[in-house]
C-alpha cells in the first residue's frame, strides 16, 4: 500500500478509534468492529452471534425499524455487516457528505439497540432463509467453512456450525440477546474505523460527539480457543443430496499470526504456489497432468488470510469425478507437498506469486470499503492495522525456504479430511 496515515485514539469509555484519510476519493466509510464472533457464542446457541448481527439492524433508540437502511441508502450509501470467527463488523460507505450521519447511525445502535421479541422472531425467519439459500438448498452448501472445522477441531468454539442449527436459532430468546449485548457490545470491546475523504481533526471530534457518551462497561475477558495440534489424520464423510460430484477438503493448522507472522505468510504463499494460476503445482499435477480433479484451491485462513486469531485453518479443497477415489487425490496432494517440503519453490516461481499478491492488494486498496475493512480487522485482531499496510513488503520478503518449511509443517502434522459424497443420482435438468 502506498503511504497511509493511521490516526488512533481511545475514548474514555474504551472505544478504540482508527482514522485513515484519503484525499483522492469522494467517498467515506465507517466500520464498527466488535470483538466477538461465532467462536464466542454460547453452547446451545449456535448461530447466535450471526443472528445478533441481524438484530443490530432492527432499530435503536433514535431509529425505528427500517430507519437504518433508509438513512444509509437515502444518503446515497451502501451498507452491510458480517460475522466471522473472532469478530463481527458493521459498515457503510457513502458520499463524504454523509460522514456525520454514518457515525450517528453506528453510535446509536452501539449505545441503545432496540431489541424486541417481534424483530427477533422476524430475523430468525430471515436467517433461516439465508441458511436455506446458502447451505440447504444448494450443492456444496457450507463447504468447507461449516463442514471442515468439526473434523479438525474438538472444542465447541472451534468445531461448531457458526450459521447455527435451526432448533437452537428458534430457541433464542430476547434475554439471550440482552445478555449477549451487555457482555460483548461494550464500547471497550469495539473499534470504529473511518476511512476515505475526511478531515482528521473534525472526524475525531465527530466520533467523540456521537460515541463519547456511551457509558463505559468492562470488556469481557477473551478466552483462549487454543487446542492441541492433531497428531493424526482425522477423517469424516458427509452426504450431499444436491451435489453431482464428490468433493473433499483438507484442513491443517496454521501458525499463530500474532506470534509468527512470517511463518503464517509462508503458509499463505504456499497456498498460492499450490493452487493459484495455471502454473501452480496442484493445478498442473491434479487438474491437468493426472486429470484427478475438476477444480482445486488452497487458502490460508478458513474465511480468508489474516481474518482470525489462533487457531485458524489452512484448507485445500477439490471437486473430483466419482470415478476418482479420494485417496488418489490425497496421495497426489501429499506427493506435491513432499516435493515442496524437500526442495521448496524456485525463486522465480515464488516471485510470480508475490507479484500476483501485490497486484491483488493494490486492487483491494483501490476500493474504500475493502481498504477500511482490511485495516479495521487487522487492527482489531492483532492490534496493528500496519499489517495491512506492510503486507506486500512482508510477502515479498518471504523466502523459498520459508515456503518449504510451511510445506514440511503440513506434512508432519495431523489434519482433517472431509469427504463430501453425493447421495443420489444427479438431479434432472428440469
Amino acid at each position, binding site marked *: 500500500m502506498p503511504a497511509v496515515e493511521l490516526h488512533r485514539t481511545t475514548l474514555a469509555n474504551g472505544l478504540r478509534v482508527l482514522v485513515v484519510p484519503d484525499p*483522492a476519493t469522494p*467517498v467515506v466509510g465507517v466500520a464498527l468492529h466488535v470483538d466477538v464472533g461465532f467462536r*464466542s*457464542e*454460547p*453452547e*446451545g*446457541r449456535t448461530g447466535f452471534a450471526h443472528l445478533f448481527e441481524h438484530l443490530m439492524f432492527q432499530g435503536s*433508540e433514535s431509529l425505528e425499524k427500517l430507519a437504518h*437502511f433508509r*438513512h444509509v*441508502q*437515502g*444518503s*446515497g*450509501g*451502501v451498507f452491510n455487516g458480517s460475522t466471522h470467527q473472532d469478530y463481527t463488523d458493521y459498515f457503510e460507505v*457513502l*458520499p463524504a*457528505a*454523509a460522514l*456525520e*450521519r454514518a457515525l*450517528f447511525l453506528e453510535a446509536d445502535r452501539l449505545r441503545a439497540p432496540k*431489541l424486541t421479541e417481534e424483530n427477533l422472531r422476524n430475523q*430468525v*425467519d*430471515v436467517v433461516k*432463509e439465508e441458511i436455506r*439459500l446458502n447451505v440447504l*438448498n*444448494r*450443492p456444496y452448501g457450507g463447504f468447507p467453512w461449516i463442514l471442515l472445522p468439526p473434523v479438525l477441531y474438538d472444542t*465447541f468454539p472451534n468445531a461448531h456450525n457458526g450459521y447455527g442449527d435451526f432448533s437452537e436459532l428458534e430457541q433464542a430468546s430476547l434475554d*439471550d440477546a*440482552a*445478555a449477549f*449485548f*451487555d*457482555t*460483548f457490545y461494550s464500547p471497550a470491546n469495539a473499534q470504529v474505523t473511518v476511512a476515505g*475523504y475526511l478531515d482528521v481533526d473534525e472526524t475525531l471530534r465527530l466520533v467523540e460527539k456521537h460515541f463519547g*457518551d456511551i457509558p463505559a*462497561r*468492562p470488556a*469481557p475477558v477473551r478466552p483462549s480457543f487454543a487446542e492441541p495440534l492433531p497428531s493424526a489424520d482425522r477423517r469424516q464423510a458427509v452426504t450431499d443430496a444436491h451435489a453431482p*460430484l464428490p468433493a473433499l477438503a483438507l484442513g491443517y493448522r496454521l501458525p499463530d499470526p500474532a506470534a509468527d507472522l512470517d511463518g503464517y505468510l509462508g503458509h499463505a504463499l504456499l497456498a498460492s504456489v499450490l493452487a493459484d*494460476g*495455471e*502454473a501452480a503445482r496442484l493445478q498442473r499435477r491434479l487438474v491437468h497432468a493426472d486429470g484427478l480433479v475438476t477444480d482445486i484451491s488452497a487458502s490460508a485462513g478458513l474465511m480468508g488470510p489474516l481474518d482470525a486469531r489462533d487457531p485458524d485453518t489452512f484448507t485445500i479443497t477439490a471437486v473430483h469425478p466419482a470415478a476418482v477415489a479420494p485417496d488418489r487425490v490425497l496421495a497426489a496432494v501429499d506427493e506435491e507437498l513432499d516435493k515442496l517440503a524437500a526442495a521448496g519453490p524456485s525463486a522465480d516461481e515464488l516471485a510470480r506469486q508475490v*507479484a*500476483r499478491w*501485490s*497486484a*491483488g492488494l*493494490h*486492487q483491494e486498496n483501490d*476500493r474504500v470499503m475493502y481498504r477500511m475493512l482490511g485495516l479495521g480487522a487487522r487492527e482489531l485482531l492483532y492490534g496493528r492495522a500496519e499489517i495491512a499496510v506492510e503486507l506486500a513488503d512482508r510477502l515479498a520478503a518471504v523466502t523459498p525456504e520459508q515456503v518449504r518449511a510451511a510445506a514440511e509443517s503440513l506434512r508432519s502434522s495431523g489434519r482433517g479430511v472431509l469427504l463430501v459424497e453425493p447421495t443420489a443420482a*444427479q438431479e434432472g435438468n*428440469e
Partner: protein
Amino acid sequence: MTTASQDTSGQHTPGNAVPGENPRHRSAEEIGRTEAGPRPLPPLGLTRAVPLPDVEEHTLDSGLRVLVAHRPGVPMVELRLRVPFAGDEPEHSAVSELLSSTLLTGTTSRDRVGIDDEMAAVGADLGVSVDPERLQIGGHGLAEGLPDLLSVLADVITSATYPDAEVARERDRLIERISVARSQPRTIAREALQRKRFGDHPITREMPTGDDVAAVTADQIRALHAAALVPRGSILTLVGDIDTAAAIAQVEKALGGWTSDVAARELSPPPAISPGDLQLVHRPGSVQSQLRLSAPALRRHDPRYAALQLANLVFGGYFSSRLMENIREDKGYTYGAHSGVEFVPGGAVLGVETDVASDVTAAALLETRYELGRLTAVPPTEAEVEAARSYAVGSLLISLDSQGGLASSLSALAADGLGIDWLRAHPARLEAVTTEQVAEVALEFFAPSAFTGVVVGDADVIGAGARALGGITGP
C-alpha cells in the same frame, strides 16, 4: 464458554440466561433507552463533486475501438476486451464455451503454463467468459506491465492453437462444471425464465448441455476463432495509472496485426416479452422456491430511463424498497428480494426475483404481485423518490470510485453506444425526474398484468397453494 463481564448498573433481570452466560445483565428494554432519549439525525454536509477522467478514444485500422482513461490511485491497469460473439448454429453455445475455456491454453510460441507465468511476472491475470451476446477477455495487472499484458493478449488472439490435449482435458472439466452448475437452483430458474420469456431465441442458450460439449472438436473451435474472434465491432477498454497516449501506442503496436475481413457478430434482438401465466417448474426435494418475474423495460437511451430507474429502486431495487421491507423485514419470507433492469440487444427487461421457503411460496407470490399492483395504484411518494434518487446518485459515485468499476462501466456503456458523457450527465438526469414521471413509468411498467415468469420448487409441496392464486400453469 465463560465470560467475565460484570454489569455495573446494579439492575438485572433474571431470565433464561444461557448456561455459562453471566446472568447479571440489563433487560432488552433497559438496553434500548437512555436518559437523554432519542437524538436527531445529523444533516448531510456538502456533496463533493468528483470529475470523471476524460476517455481517449481511438479506432485502429482493423476496426478495433480502443478506449483509455487515466485514473491513478493504485499502480494498476484494468483491461476489458469485448467481442460481439453471437451465433445461430445449434452447437454455437457449446463451441464458444469450450473456446472460452481453452483460449489461454496455448499459442504458437507459448504453452498454457508459459502464458500464465508471463502474466504472473507483472502481477497480471486474464480471464475469458462468453455468453450468447459477447466474449469478454477481462483482466488487470501492474500498470508498468501493460506492454507485457498486451503482448500476451495479442498472442492468444492472433495465434491461439487450441492444442488437442488441452481441448480434451478442458472438455471433460467443462462437462463436470456444467453438471455442478445445473444442480444450482438459480441456474435452473434462470434457464426456465429465459425459455419462458424469449422462447428459443439464441439469447436463451446461456449454458450448453454436457452432451453438446462432448461433441465439440478442436477444429470447430479453431474455425470459430478464425471466423468470429475479430476486431471490427470489438471494443478494448483500459483504465488505470497509465498515460493515455502511450497506452494507445502500445495497443497499436501489440494488436495492429489482429485483422479480419469480417465484423464481429451481434446478437439479434430477442422477441418482446409477452405477459402471461407463470410457469411452475418442478424441482423434487427443494426446500426453497425461486420466484422469477419479468416484463419489458426501457433502454438507457430512453428519456424516461432515469424515472424507470427510480421506480425500480422504490419497488425492489435496493434494501429500502417496498418489496424487501414487506417480504423480508415484515414477513420474514426471504433473505433477499430484488428487482432490476437487464439490458438485452435493442432493449431492456425488468426482472423481479426472490428465493423463499417452500411453505411460504404462495404467500410470497401473493405479496410480490400485491407490491407490483401497489406501485401502480399507490405510486411512489415524494419521500420515496427522494431516497431512491439519493441512492442512485451516491451508489453511482461509489461504483465508479475504482479502476475496475470504471472500466466495467465504460465497457458496458460503449457496447450500448454510450460514452462517459452519459455517465457525467446521469446525476443531473436523476435530479430532474419528478414524482409524477415516476408514477407514469410505474403505471406502465410495473402493472402485474405486464409480467410473465417462472416459479421453481417442489410442485408437490407448493403446487396447490400457488395454483389457487391463479395465473400459474404447469405440474
